[in-house]
């Protein structure tokens, strides 16, 4: 780890720390800064950061975002940027809650959908430590930064045995054109026993500026709760997007996550799942499409802590130009996690000679009587298939596009929200076209 002092990233951000803050906040921030001072930022020597160089991020003197963005965003422009999935919506612009763009009508009684900053101080003092949990379980510098600097964020709390029919949409938009901004989006999602919901997180940009989006989503599922979580990352192509999804699952809960990652100069998507109660199930799907000089890194860790839990993991990368796709997936089966059933598949498709992929499965099994299957593949488009399609009249670019779409189609089909699926299909189609353009 390198020293945290003298890092351009921190200078303006640390200086902006307010003088007066409540005790809980001073304490959490103190702990985060202290962690950072002791451990510093990761280097290539840290296994989990082997492929993602943070030096380009540390070199930028990011500014904290002002509460009022320079430009007013219209609802029409927002819909254009992030879509509308027909349910309640919370919008954060540069990390700050944008009430006029948000919509909370139609929620069942007892469901809380709010921004953190709007909560009474006493309640926030209870919730904040949940968000800071990452500092205990698997700390790293950017997690600490989120704990220290995260201002606002989304809170979704669903009581027991309550089903949300329509998807919740959390929008984290960065409007950054002039000075490089750092934002630390946060979401806390708690589902009571037997409750059900689906949720979409959109991480998007309006404008092509450099910024750092350092996001954290914390999910807690009580017994038998079910959450479908979709994440759409379409950050600016010059941005740094570091996201972390941390999930705790109680007995018989179901969690499915679906990530589509297109944006960012450097993008990193960490998912940590703790299967804490027997019979819990998780399914992680991820599609990452780096091109140009993009670097997209996926780090997943599924921890089987209880018996009879199931985990399914399926990641696919399509990599063009000089893009670099990384997948590192740990599956840990703790002692006592009998009858664990885990599987992981990773497939990478390289569209150019300069594209690069790294896939690393890691199985750490400390229990008997478990099933763990994994497979990783890296390949190029099949020349014989291209010729077959061309012999039927498709041009070479059309044949390549058809085969590339075929490769990603199962990931798109896995999206159960139809309007989201068509949006992701369009986004992916545009990104795939750009991947075929030589760097």
């Amino acid at each position, binding site marked *: 780890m390198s020293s945290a002092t003298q890092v351009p990233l921190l200078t303006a951000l640390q200086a902006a720390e307010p003088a007066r803050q409540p005790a809980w906040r001073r304490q959490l921030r103190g702990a985060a800064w202290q962690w950072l001072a002791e451990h510093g930022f990761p280097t290539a020597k840290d296994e989990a950061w082997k492929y993602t160089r943070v030096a380009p991020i540390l070199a930028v003197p990011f500014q904290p975002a002002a509460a009022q963005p320079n430009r007013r965003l219209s609802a029409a422009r927002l819909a254009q940027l992030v879509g509308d999935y027909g349910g309640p919506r919370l919008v954060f612009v540069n990390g700050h809650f944008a009430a006029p763009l948000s919509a909370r009508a139609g929620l069942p009684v007892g469901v809380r959908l709010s921004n953190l900053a709007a909560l009474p101080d006493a309640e926030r003092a209870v919730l904040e430590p949940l968000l800071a949990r990452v500092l205990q379980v698997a700390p790293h510098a950017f997690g600490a930064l989120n704990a220290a600097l995260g201002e606002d964020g989304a809170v979704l709390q669903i009581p027991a045995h309550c089903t949300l029919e329509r998807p919740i949409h959390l929008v984290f938009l960065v409007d950054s054109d002039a000075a490089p901004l750092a934002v630390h989006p946060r979401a806390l999602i708690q589902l009571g026993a037997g409750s059900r919901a689906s949720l979409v997180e959109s991480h998007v940009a309006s404008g092509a500026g450099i910024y750092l989006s350092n996001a954290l989503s914390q999910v807690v599922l009580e017994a038998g709760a079910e959450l479908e979580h979709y994440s759409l990352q379409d950050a600016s192509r010059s941005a740094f997007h570091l996201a972390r999804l941390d999930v705790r699952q109680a007995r018989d809960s179901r969690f499915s996550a679906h990530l589509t990652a297109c944006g960012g100069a450097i993008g990193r998507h960490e998912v940590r799942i703790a299967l804490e109660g027997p019979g819990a199930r998780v399914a992680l799907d991820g599609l990452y499409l780096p091109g140009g000089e993009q670097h997209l890194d996926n780090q997943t860790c599924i921890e089987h802590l209880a018996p009879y839990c199931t985990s399914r993991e399926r990641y696919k990368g399509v990599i063009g130009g000089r893009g670099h796709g990384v997948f590192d997936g740990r599956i840990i089966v703790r002692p006592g996690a009998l009858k664990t059933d885990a599987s992981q598949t990773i497939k990478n498709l390289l569209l150019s000679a300069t594209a690069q992929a790294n896939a690393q499965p890691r199985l750490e099994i400390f229990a008997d009587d478990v099933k763990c299957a994994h497979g990783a593949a890296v390949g190029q488009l099949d020349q014989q298939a291209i010729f077959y399609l*061309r012999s*039927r*009249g498709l041009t070479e670019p059309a044949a390549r596009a058809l085969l590339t779409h075929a490769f990603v189609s199962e990931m798109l089909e896995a999206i159960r929200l139809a309007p989201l699926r068509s949006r992701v299909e369009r986004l992916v189609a545009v990104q795939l076209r750009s991947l075929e353009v030589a760097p």
Partner: protein
Amino acid sequence: MLEIENLHASVEGSEILRGISLRIEAGEVHAIMGPNGSGKSTLAQVLAGNPTYRVSGQVRFQGRDLLAMAAEARAVAGIFLAFQYPVEIPGVGNLYFLRTALNAVRRQRGQEELDAMDFLALAKERMQLVEMDPELMNRALNEGFSGGEKKRNEIFQMAVLQPSLAILDETDSGLDIDALRSVAAGVNALRSADRALLLITHYQRLLDYIVPDYIHVMANGRIVQSGDKALAVELEQHGYAHFDAAPAPGQRP
């Protein structure tokens, strides 16, 4: 329609076609027979424009320089190859693919594209020609198809695309007798005065159902004998052994 002169083809430095010359007129059916490894399938792939091969010589198709044309341009010009091993493409629907192909060809020919309804009507009609199970239409292209289903699918594609020159590479292999009969019926239905067929086969069996005007025997990358359909019967009796035994002139032992 097709004039091949002194066609050579090699892959990874080894020469597979060693000077093929052949003339096919509109309305004719030619069969190329020969032992395994004689270069029959390479000839089919080279004519369809497989870029894997290094080729030299002259091939004119309807007066145009075929070897200068990309595979897709040959399809647009009216060449169709029914593959010996049709490629399985998971994630691409069979009908979606065929409509994309047909419209790609039509567009490049300056014709109007078919909409989904018109295409479906055409596909249904042509499917009956090869007695194809309509269930297969909604599956991914060739994925999980049996050998016979794949071959039927090739002839179905041919029936939709309506080529001027169809090259059928070992279409009979892997077919049981009933499938062979219905596939052959589909092919025969497409025979016409302005269309030519080039059949590539190891066995005479196919030629009982699709009767050729001319038969050519290939060995060691050359056509070593040509004749009418009586030649097939002769080959069935004596096999290919004596063609293989005689090294081609000029070849080093």
